[in-house]
């Protein structure tokens, strides 16, 4: 790991960043597979239409705000504004958790309408898409938490290039799941 960080200085793109980008490709493949299957199955008929509960729109606002705060936190870190960094990162983490809670609320809302995972292909796919996305979000939250805990350690080692790289990677990943959610929302919206 050390060795990688050292090579970083002479490369324009850090190998870890590159690795993150290509792993996103494979996540994109996963979700394209889901959504293509969705389109095919919908075309086959026997499809129950239901509206999107309003929570999913609230959550969209929340995850966008979350991305924004994480970005500001990162910028503060770069400018060595550590107080703001701690503050923004905490808000970001809170919003991330709120996002998951809202997604879950939206699902409960559907349950109230008697729509469950096995009700129809449409609801199965819905759970599949939102659930798989939520799993990716939870992975992101684990990374946010790690940085959050480190952010409040008084250990100065944390304020290093290595710390900055970790934040950058975390933010990149988070923006990715954010955009992924926008894509899924738009997809579900147009499929209605």
């Amino acid at each position: 790991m050390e060795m990688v960080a050292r090579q970083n200085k002479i490369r324009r793109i850090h190998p870890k960043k590159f690795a993150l980008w290509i792993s996103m490709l494979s996540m994109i493949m996963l979700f394209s597979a889901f959504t293509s299957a969705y389109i095919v199955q919908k075309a086959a008929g026997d499809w129950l239409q239901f509206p999107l509960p309003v929570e999913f729109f609230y959550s969209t606002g929340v995850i966008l705000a979350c991305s924004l705060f994480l970005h500001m936190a990162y910028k503060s870190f770069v400018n060595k504004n550590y107080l703001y960094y701690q503050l923004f990162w905490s808000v970001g983490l809170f919003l991330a958790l709120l996002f998951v809670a809202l997604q879950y609320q939206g699902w409960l809302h559907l349950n109230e309408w008697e729509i469950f995972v096995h009700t129809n292909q449409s609801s199965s796919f819905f759970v599949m898409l939102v659930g798989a996305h939520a799993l990716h979000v939870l992975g992101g939250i684990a990374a946010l938490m790690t940085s959050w805990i480190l952010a409040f350690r008084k250990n100065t080692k944390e304020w290093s290039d290595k710390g900055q790289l970790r934040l950058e990677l975390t933010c990149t990943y988070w923006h990715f799941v954010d955009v992924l959610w926008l894509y899924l929302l738009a997809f579900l919206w147009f499929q209605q």
Partner: protein
Amino acid sequence: MADINVLEKEAHLSDHGDHHDDHHGDKYQSSFVDRYVFSQDHKTIAKQFLITGMMWAVIGSAMSIIFRIQLGYPDADISWLQPLLGGWIQIDPLTGVGKLDPQFYYALVTMHGTILVFFVLTAGLSGTFSNLLIPLQCGARDMASPMLNMLSYWFFFLAGAVLFISLFLNTGPFSGGWTGYPPLSGLPQASDGSKAGATLWILSLVFFVVSVLLGGINYITTVINMRTKGMHMFRLPLTIWAFLVTAILGLLSFPVLASGFFMLTFDRVLGTSFFLNEIFVAGEALTTRVGGSAILYQHLFWFLGHPEVYIIILPAMGLVSEVLSVHSRKPIFGYKAMVFSILAIGVLSFLVWAHHMYMTGMNPFIANIFILFTLIIAVPSAVKVFNWIATIWGGNIRINSASLFSIGFVSMFISGGLTGIFLGNAAIDIQQHDTYFVVAHFHIVMGVAAFFGMFAGIYHWFPRLYGRFMNETLGKIHFWGTIVGAYAIFGPMHYLGMAGVPRRYYSFAGFDSFSEFASMNEFITIAAIVTFAFQILFVVNFFYSMYKGKKQTEMNPWKATSLEWTAPVDCGHGNWEGEIPQVHRWPYDFGRHGRDFIPQTEPLAEGEVDGGH
């Protein structure tokens, strides 16, 4: 992916700077556990992949011997297998004759396929050689992330452990075929093997997907970002090109398999019907499970499945190209054509998956598109075959185990590729689908050919792995036994298939039309047992040579040009002492300027043009 410009640009980006660091002091690799178990050294991880793969190869092939006995000797008494298989041998209380439980026959076929395709020919082949050669041939101290690399192995190990446990379940391991088609795999009540066995099979393969992705991300990152100074893309040995494209294929196709598995798990656990519609189990209709499509699963599976067969064969192609060139003492013929063929195969392999599904009732016009792409993929394949032959043509070839297996690979690839062209035409495939013709096709072109590539690689790079040579005499015996044996096994299967004998049948006793093939089936079984014995010879040679083989005395025993032979025989973690060597030329300078070979590290002479261009 095929965008060479981007790759070239990347190459220039990374052309500057050395990697000097002191990694080979290795202070955190002192304990036994760190060094041999949770090692992060790519060379050790390569050995772990290799040994684990070999272990699985023995288990998986032994399984095939058991079901071949059933096919070759359907009436034989196999109660002597009871100590090994226990309850899976049913003993008739009256006659005392022991027979293989039909359910277990299917489980064996399924496990054989899964183990060989994924654990042996994917992990054991690409895992081993990508790990060994990517850092060494690119000129890097290790992978971009040694940690992820180690995790990749341990996820593979976990996948294996889970599948292994499933062998001991009361209801038996999964038995629905290596492709795991629903509804058989989607409904636990469909058969014994679809109960816990299927759950563990899916779990195991999900771990496997994680392993492939972690490995692949690392391989790609290392090849693109961590090459030594001077090593631009068109100075890479063909091995590295093959591993790179393999990793890209895996990265793009395995997630799609994962999506299919997630949906399958939903169907199994949450009562959804992604893949289920109008199913009857034991005469009863499952009225709540409607609306899905089993064909959808096939699309998802084969979208991985076809690239997967190239994930298996491309590394073998890379190894063979390298071995043939080194041992013929000639540059590889048409280096750039080879690179572009690899890339073309990579792209096309995503466009042909439905040739596995001609019989699903697909629209014949759509089938035609897939026929077209399937036949087009034969073009880059043929280019490669031509180039291999042109490479050895008129060469001063050293006949040894590695080069023999490489030539054997070319032979197998031609034979199996030819039958692929038959199958690729829907009109012919309607007759051949699900017969032994298909079994013969893919065993020759993928199974045997990939094994040959792997053997060539092991014989050739054994000194790099263990600092010793494998025994040549045993190696040659192994080669002749294997090539004759493999043709004896799979040759007759073409004939069976053309006569319409279906694959995956426990017994043909009920079909008069197939009874005339009993002796042919017996012959195949004998050939399989003999060929298996030759593989045991290989395993013995492998472990014997590891400790007692002829010692490697010079750094570059094959007089090869590439970088892996510039590192000391017993190099530690970090590969090179001091600076990483720089590269000045392509890796195939054999017989140039009247010299036997010129290593990649030797600067170009004044006015000399690099060979690759």
